[in-house]
């Protein structure tokens, strides 16, 4: 029934991509909603169904969904309208510039952050009242982003349709916001937005934002809007709950729901509380932070939460019902929701997760429909497929004799689809800014484009957490086995439309800090005694406010200069460090770049040396500069080497460069001081002359041996002599076998694979390099290594120094000028130009109760707390794991403060501070609802990749599987509604965990294929260790696009498809990218015209598979494809290698390696198989 409905609805929604929304929503909803399980559920359903997309506000949506269920229609209608307006309004105002002034007046400024809220409010407002609307708007500033939506609204609406949920959520948020603002804010924004004209758009915007940021809101919104507006938190809750259930039941799903529902239900209950608390917390906090009108927030939140819970529960049902279909169903339902907000809400929510599935379903529609039915049945089938996250249980199975189906076949379409989840989130949250004012919000997925407004918490671009709701006790944390980790990218590059962190100068005495724990002044510090003292938000110690920093408090207890000081109102900002933060109490010199070029036979012969020298001539004009300064402060130096080192004196006063050969590699030193590191502009002629001559000088070299450690030593010594930090760019070609310290031998031995000794392949040969790295770090000498091996060169050992100094390794095996030149040059350019900090120390402070215990990434640690980085660039990420050492409280939540002390590229010593506040929960369901699977995978991968250093790979794999099984089993046991043991129930936010985990397990490091070299494995191991979430996401689950579906006339990308061979059509072209490579797969039956357009040849057989770029052809298809590739390239921190793969060509094996849902050649399980396996594991744990 539901199935049918869903199916129908689903389709319609499908368009909206409820699936995606659902996904996101669900995901988010789950997360955000956590507090309100019910609400979340609701949200899920919500999103899925009609709203799905809109509902997307994921987390919240679910809740919203529920709420929406409850009052979906109204909400939807209201919200959409309102929202649009708001959004529009908000966006317009976006100026954001003005921080969230007190809710009311300031709104505009605050908007950015609030915008979400604002939107929420808007919706609420709409739903509730103009007033609310207005407020939101007020807060809206953020909305701005959404502004555009107005127009789109209609479209979005559809989503919104579902959106109701989102709307609700939004409203909730809004409510929260409103609450704060409602009193004051509403009017302004409200008006503007209220204008309603934008309303529709607003909704659109909402959805977008909602999905992303709003989730929480949405959840609240959905219901809240109504409720909120009414300010009937309690009621809302009840309604939600009821709704949620009803919705579930109501919807076709009812049958199915039960199980799921139950599962969910339980959460709801618990969540209900949670949610309430959540919302309250969230709502409250936001309001407080935001505008300060807490009540509304609570009310709203309350509602939302409740909804969320419901939502979440419901979704499961649907999902359950038709395991995979479930989601779809939901998604399908989604559509219905529009009509029936409530149902939609449900489905949305639950489906949330599924919804995503559906997302894809839309296409598959057919199958899904079926699934929905199963969805209901899923419960039974589950046994066979443990797949279904929540209800994932194979839909079919559910419909069919669950038992039978399970094992026999699981419809791949029925299991959670990453594509769907991503699409949903993109649709639901991509269009509205993510405003960081509220504690514990789950941000949009990394695959979603969204705008961030800093209103007190660090942007997810800087910090992402595995969970935004942390268990209050270590027992809970242990029970769930969900790792608590944050992935921090302190110097992340922001999109141009987001403001980089402000620089704060506290003058001579330096930044204001807590006396005890030394935490830096941040928005969470509480000023007391009229502003004379402040209480530390981390350790509660009370510290005097220094006289020069004193400021009166306003009636709300906030400093009057709140908006004038970034450190009081923003999540991320920088302090100017004083001399006491510098080595030897001396301000640092500007850093230096040293280019160290291997000039041995191989390097010269391949043309590499000439290439580098040519490139450097122009590249030196693009050294990183600070702000508006015209000339880079960075000095440069040059070294070439083979068995000996050649330093160059390029002092500007010289008529010609001087080369200084140091052959005493056993005891490296720097032969010159003056003239080695120079200002590029001053010494330009000498440098150019040098770069002209280097290739000539070594043109006839016959030296094949190289040294390596002395090269690093030399660079380090040079920096030491110049008393500055800096970076070495080393271009190296071979295993360093020349007699010198750090000499290596070829120890590559593939026979070790799958033995206990396999770990030695990842360990360095000698401890020499670790010690060297230590010295480098002490000197602030970061090493970037460009490798051009023709054979084994022991990346595991050579990489130690780059790795521990925060540098990067680039590897170009079998480098050939024609094919690899562009890739290398692009990498080099990017590497030289990117923003980078030197001589950095990072410390993560946390609220009492948890503690940063483990760190992953490219750095060095000499003690247990300080992460030392000789260099840190904008792409480097550090993953930090937290453990409890005490209890946390739900009221105060958990705070993180990441402080990075570094030397900027102009030589300025600075402190970059990122703050993030998380919620705390006493209910497991809250935890599961606020998780972020991508981040989780990032953590797990890094954890495993480090594990292989000390453990057999098999152990590491088993550990991973175990942990995931426990995470999921815990959920099943504690959060899911009772259902048959055979049913696989996955948390909405984690429904992709199995598929992603499988990708990690199948990765080259953990399960190498026959053609993967030891060096590759070591390389990837180190590479992944400093990847951020977006990179790991695409690395483990590559993006696969059908090129024939490319819309030549628009900028939108075709919908991605799942990484499975059976989804490839012989008649199509596909693009696959994983962050390192781009493949263009050409099916044998591709139309001649396409081939002609793309490759400029007449037939399939004449396509050359050795192309490294697509030919530049003057036709729109070629242009479009190339622009897509260019776009991809620009999104990644490394230039990807382009490989043309012809179907049934030998290269196809390589390509298939990336079809990660399939069984791999090296024995990796297919998605379906792995899901089954996981389910088995979970069942074992449960029994």
């Amino acid at each position, binding site marked *: 029934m539901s199935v049918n409905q869903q199916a129908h609805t689903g389709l319609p929604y499908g368009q909206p991509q409820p699936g995606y929304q659902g996904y996101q929503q669900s995901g988010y909803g789950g997360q955000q909603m956590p507090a309100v399980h019910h609400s979340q559920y609701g949200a899920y359903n919500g999103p899925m169904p009609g709203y799905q997309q809109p509902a997307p506000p994921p987390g919240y949506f679910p809740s919203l969904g529920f709420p929406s269920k409850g009052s979906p229609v109204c909400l939807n209608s209201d919200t959409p309208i309102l929202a649009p307006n708001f959004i529009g309004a908000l966006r317009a105002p976006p100026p954001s510039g003005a921080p969230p002034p007190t809710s009311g007046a300031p709104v505009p400024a605050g908007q950015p952050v609030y915008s979400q809220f604002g939107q929420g409010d808007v919706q609420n407002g709409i739903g509730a009242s103009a007033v609310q609307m207005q407020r939101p708007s007020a807060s809206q500033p953020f909305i701005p982003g959404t502004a555009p939506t107005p127009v789109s609204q209609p479209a979005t609406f559809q989503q919104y349709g579902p959106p109701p949920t989102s709307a609700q959520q939004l409203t909730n948020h809004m409510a929260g916001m409103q609450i704060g603002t409602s009193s004051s804010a509403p009017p302004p924004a409200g008006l503007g937005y209220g204008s309603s004209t934008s309303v529709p758009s607003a909704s659109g915007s909402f959805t977008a934002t909602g999905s992303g940021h709003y989730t929480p809101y949405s959840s609240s919104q959905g219901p809240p809007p109504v409720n909120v507006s009414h300010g009937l938190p309690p009621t809302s809750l009840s309604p939600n709950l009821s709704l949620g259930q009803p919705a579930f039941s109501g919807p076709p799903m009812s049958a199915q729901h039960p199980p799921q529902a139950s599962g969910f239900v339980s959460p709801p209950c618990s969540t209900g509380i949670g949610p309430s608390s959540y919302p309250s917390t969230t709502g409250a906090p936001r309001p407080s932070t935001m505008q300060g009108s807490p009540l509304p927030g609570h009310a709203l939140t309350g509602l939302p939460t409740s909804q969320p819970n419901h939502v979440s529960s419901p979704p499961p049902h649907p999902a359950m019902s038709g395991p995979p279909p479930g989601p779809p169903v939901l998604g399908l339902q989604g559509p219905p929701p529009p009509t029936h907000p409530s149902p939609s809400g449900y489905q949305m929510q639950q489906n949330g997760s599924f919804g995503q599935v559906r997302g894809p379903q839309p296409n598959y529609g057919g199958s899904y429909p079926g699934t929905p039915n199963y969805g209901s049945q899923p419960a039974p089938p589950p046994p066979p497929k443990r797949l279904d996250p929540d209800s994932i249980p194979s839909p079919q199975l559910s419909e069919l004799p669950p038992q039978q189906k399970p094992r026999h076949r699981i419809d791949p379409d029925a299991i959670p689809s990453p594509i769907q989840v991503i699409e949903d989130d993109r649709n639901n949250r991509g269009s509205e800014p993510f405003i960081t004012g509220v504690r514990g919000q789950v941000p949009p997925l990394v695959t979603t484009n969204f705008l961030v407004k800093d209103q007190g918490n660090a942007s997810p671009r800087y910090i992402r957490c595995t969970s935004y709701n942390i268990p209050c006790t270590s027992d809970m944390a242990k029970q769930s086995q969900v790792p608590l980790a944050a992935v921090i990218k302190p110097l992340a590059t922001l999109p141009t439309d987001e403001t980089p962190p402000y620089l704060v100068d506290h003058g001579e005495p330096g930044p204001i800090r807590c006396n005890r724990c030394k935490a830096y002044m941040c928005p969470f510090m509480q000023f007391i005694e009229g502003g004379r003292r402040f209480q530390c938000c981390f350790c509660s110690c009370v510290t005097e406010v220094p006289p020069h920093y004193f400021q009166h408090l306003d009636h709300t207890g906030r400093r009057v200069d709140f908006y004038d000081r970034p450190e009081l109102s923003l999540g991320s900002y920088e302090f100017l460090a004083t001399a006491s933060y510098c080595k030897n109490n001396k301000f640092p010199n500007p850093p230096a770049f040293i280019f160290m070029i291997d000039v041995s036979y191989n390097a010269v012969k391949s043309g590499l040396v000439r290439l580098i020298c040519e490139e450097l001539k122009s590249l030196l004009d693009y050294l990183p500069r600070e702000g508006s300064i015209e000339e880079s402060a960075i000095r440069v130096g040059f070294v070439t080497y083979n068995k000996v080192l050649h330093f160059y004196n390029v002092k500007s006063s010289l008529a010609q460069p001087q080369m200084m050969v140091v052959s*005493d590699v056993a005891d490296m030193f720097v032969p010159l001081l003056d003239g080695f590191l120079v200002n590029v502009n001053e010494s330009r002629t000498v440098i150019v002359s040098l770069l002209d001559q280097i290739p000539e000088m070594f043109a006839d070299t016959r030296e094949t041996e190289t040294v390596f450690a002395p090269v690093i030593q030399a660079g380090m010594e040079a920096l030491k002599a110049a008393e500055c930090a800096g970076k070495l760019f080393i271009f190296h070609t071979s295993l360093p076998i020349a007699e010198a310290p750090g000499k290596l031998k070829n120890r590559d031995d593939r026979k070790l694979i799958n033995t206990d000794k396999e770990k030695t392949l990842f360990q360095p040969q000698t401890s020499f390099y670790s010690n060297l790295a230590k010295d480098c770090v002490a000197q602030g000498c970061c090493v970037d290594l460009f490798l051009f091996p023709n054979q084994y060169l022991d990346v595991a050992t050579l990489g130690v120094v780059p790795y521990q100094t925060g540098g990067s390794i680039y590897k170009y095996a079998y480098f050939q000028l024609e094919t690899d030149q562009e890739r290398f040059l692009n990498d080099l350019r990017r590497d030289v130009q990117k923003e980078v900090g030197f001589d950095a120390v990072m410390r993560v402070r946390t609220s009492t109760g948890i503690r940063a215990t483990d760190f992953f990434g490219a750095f060095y640690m000499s003690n247990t707390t300080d992460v030392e980085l000789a260099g840190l660039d904008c792409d480097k990420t550090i993953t930090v794991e937290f453990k409890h050492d005490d209890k946390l409280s739900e009221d105060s939540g958990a705070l993180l403060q990441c402080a990075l002390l570094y030397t900027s590229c102009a030589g300025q010593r600075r402190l970059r501070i990122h703050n993030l506040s998380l919620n705390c929960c006493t209910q497991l369901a809250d935890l599961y609802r606020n998780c972020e699977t991508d981040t989780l995978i990032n953590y797990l991968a890094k954890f495993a990749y480090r594990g292989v250093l000390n453990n057999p790979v098999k152990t590491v794999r088993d550990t991973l599987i175990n942990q995931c099984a426990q995470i999921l089993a815990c959920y099943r046991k504690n959060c899911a509604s009772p259902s048959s043991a055979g049913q696989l129930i996955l948390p909405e936010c984690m429904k992709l965990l199995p598929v992603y985990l499988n990708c990690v397990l199948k990765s080259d490091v953990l399960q190498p294929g026959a053609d993967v070299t030891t060096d590759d494995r070591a390389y990837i191991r180190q590479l992944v260790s400093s990847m951020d979430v977006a990179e790991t996401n695409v690395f483990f689950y590559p993006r696969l696009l059908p090129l024939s579906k490319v819309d030549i006339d628009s900028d939108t990308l075709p919908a991605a498809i799942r990484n499975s061979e059976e989804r490839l059509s012989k008649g199509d072209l596909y693009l696959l990218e994983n962050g390192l490579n781009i493949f263009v797969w050409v099916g044998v039956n591709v139309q001649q015209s396409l081939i002609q357009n793309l490759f400029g040849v007449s037939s399939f057989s004449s396509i050359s598979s050795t192309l490294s770029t697509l030919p530049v052809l003057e036709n729109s298809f070629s242009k479009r494809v190339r622009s897509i590739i260019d776009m991809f390239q620009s999104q990644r921190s490394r230039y990807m290698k382009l490989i043309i793969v012809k179907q049934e060509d030998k290269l196809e094996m390589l390509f298939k390696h990336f079809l990660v849902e399939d069984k791999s050649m090296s024995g990796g399980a297919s998605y379906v198989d792995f899901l089954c396996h996981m389910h088995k594991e979970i069942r074992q744990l449960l029994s």
Partner: protein
Amino acid sequence: MATYLEFIQQNEERDGVRFSWNVWPSSRLEATRMVVPLACLLTPLKERLDLPPVQYEPVLCSRPTCKAVLNPLCQVDYRAKLWACNFCFQRNQFPPAYAGISEVNQPAELMPQFSTIEYIVQRGSPTPLIFLYVVDTCLEEEDLQALKESLQMSLSLLPPDALVGLITFGRMVQVHELSCEGISKSYVFRGTKDLTAKQIQDMLGLTRQDLCKHRNNHLFLAVCNSCRFLQPVHKIDMNLTDLLGELQRDPWPVTQGKRPLRSTGVALSIAVGLLEGTFPNTGARVMLFTGGPPTQGPGMVVGDELKTPIRSWHDIEKDNARFMKKATKHYEVLANRTAANGHCIDIYACALDQTGLLEMKCCANLTGGHMVMGDSFNTSLFKQTFQRVFSKDFNGQFRMAFGATLEVKTSRELKISGAIGPCVSLNAKGPCVSESELGIGGTCQWKICSLDPSSTLAIYFEVVNQHNAPIPQGGRGAVQFVSQYQHSSTQRRIRVTTIARNWADAQSQLQHIEAAFDQEAAAVLMARLGVYRAESEEGPDVLRWLDRQLIRLCQKFGQYNKDDPNSFRLSDSFSLYPQFMFHLRRSPFLQVFNNSPDESSYYRHHFARQDLTQSLIMIQPILYSYSFSGPPEPVLLDSSSILADRILLMDTFFQIVIYLGETIAQWQKAGYQDMPEYENFRHLLQAPLDDAQEILQTRFPMPRYINTEHGSSQARFLLSKVNPSQTHNNLYAWGQESGSPILTDDVSLQVFMDHLKKLAVSSAS
């Protein structure tokens, strides 16, 4: 007498040889009783305008242990075409080329006037001379600039095909590659690390070529090796001039209170290693220019803390010179390696403080290199001295020779005890090597890596003929000196000097022996022994030894009544000897008071290599007097010679002092010399200046030129040298117009002689 003086002078002019005794005591016992050993001063490359070298190989005695060269003393059977070796009496066939020999058709080597003859021989391929500059960059800007200019100038003085190389050092050591276009290239070494020759060659990339040595011919190897660091002057003239021009002061910061870090030890080590690896046994000069003491690494002489002063004699006596032994060892090892390869090391040290010559002296001493000490590179003392290194003889040839080996052959009654001079032993044992050693002994061959026309070795002999084996009447003892060397024109040459002296029975013919005593040569030979001993023994011990020798000599050859000092007389041939000894005792060669260890080393270095005349000047400076009372005349080196109306010109070899007497100085101040009517005064003032210029023109190293007057502080240079016949202790001389008193407690010659007489006649000793 006159005949002996003439004989001696003639011999010196012809052969460059001065024997202490020109008639030799015929028994070992008698010889030892003569006190002054039988010895000679040999100037192997004494310039001879009238000696055209012959263009063929010398004819050698066929006895393997002898191999003496055919000489005028040999008996020749013109009919049988045989000649008898006058050392081993082996009869030898003349080689085929001598078929036309007859009494009227003698080859040059048989003619008596060719007791010294020079052969030009073909040995291997001629290798160009090599000059390797090792330049300190831790100098004051002006000094460095001056040094750079001197070096650039020197390029024009080098033979065009000479190879030249450049090593600079400061905190690091840089070996410059000279053949690069567009980029100047150098190999850099850390200044603190001692490297073995092999390491250095590896690091300079010189071993690779060793590998191809087997495959390619030797010439290629040489070219190959040299191409990078050693280049023909004519090819890289411009390059090197530019390179020198761009030379900067050592860029490493020197903080307050520190000395710059100067890696002299490593720089030298690398220079030596470089040449060793590329051109062993080829004439090469390593020219070290340093402006301060080595302060780091092997061979460091003092730490870089300015508050710790560089070692003084006082420190050395107290065993308080912590780096000295190690540093000395380092440089000794280097010097020996250098000598083994036939290269030489010059040291040009210009600084106000010491530069570590004490530790580095062996580098120059053992290899025949120059040692020049000055205050600054920016002085004419250095500039002219350096320029004079490249001076040319009347043939337009450089006055330098390389890689010489000196072999001495003696007739059976004599054996060789040793040699003292700028040489090292080649450890060639032979029948004519004595067991008793004087100087560098135990060998009959020495290597002298660098020679100039004035380089003089003291060679000591022992008479081994037993008392009971009288020498036949008219028997003569013979000594043959065979020097093989690389001429500056890159030819290999062999100079053979064969001399003979009569034997005399010391008991019956003592007066002959006495009359043939060369007291000047004896004084120098004894002084060399004393200075040689002073290097290893305590100063007072050496003085005691010298005194004892003098007393014994006086006892042996004086005429006196026992215990009656007044009756003591010495014959003319001995009369000056005690005075030489008196001044020698006061000389800086044996007295370290008032001299830094570096100065002592510097003085001793020159004393051990100069010829007889210069050595005597060093022992007893020459004093000329200029006055209105007559033409310039030499006067006693005595305080009584210092008169108010005189201008004195003193030449101590190291210094030229012009001293204006009190009255003269006043006149000069009054400006009389500028008045036309006192033109004679102007001439008087000018005369010593002109004479001084004459000395300055020829002396190497350029002496310190001091123009002073009565009462000026610089007058101390004069006052410290003259015999203090009048001091504050014997004021009876006051008021007499007989000079000026010297404020010293040193004994005067008079007192010395009085004591000597007393001791000589004493029956107690």
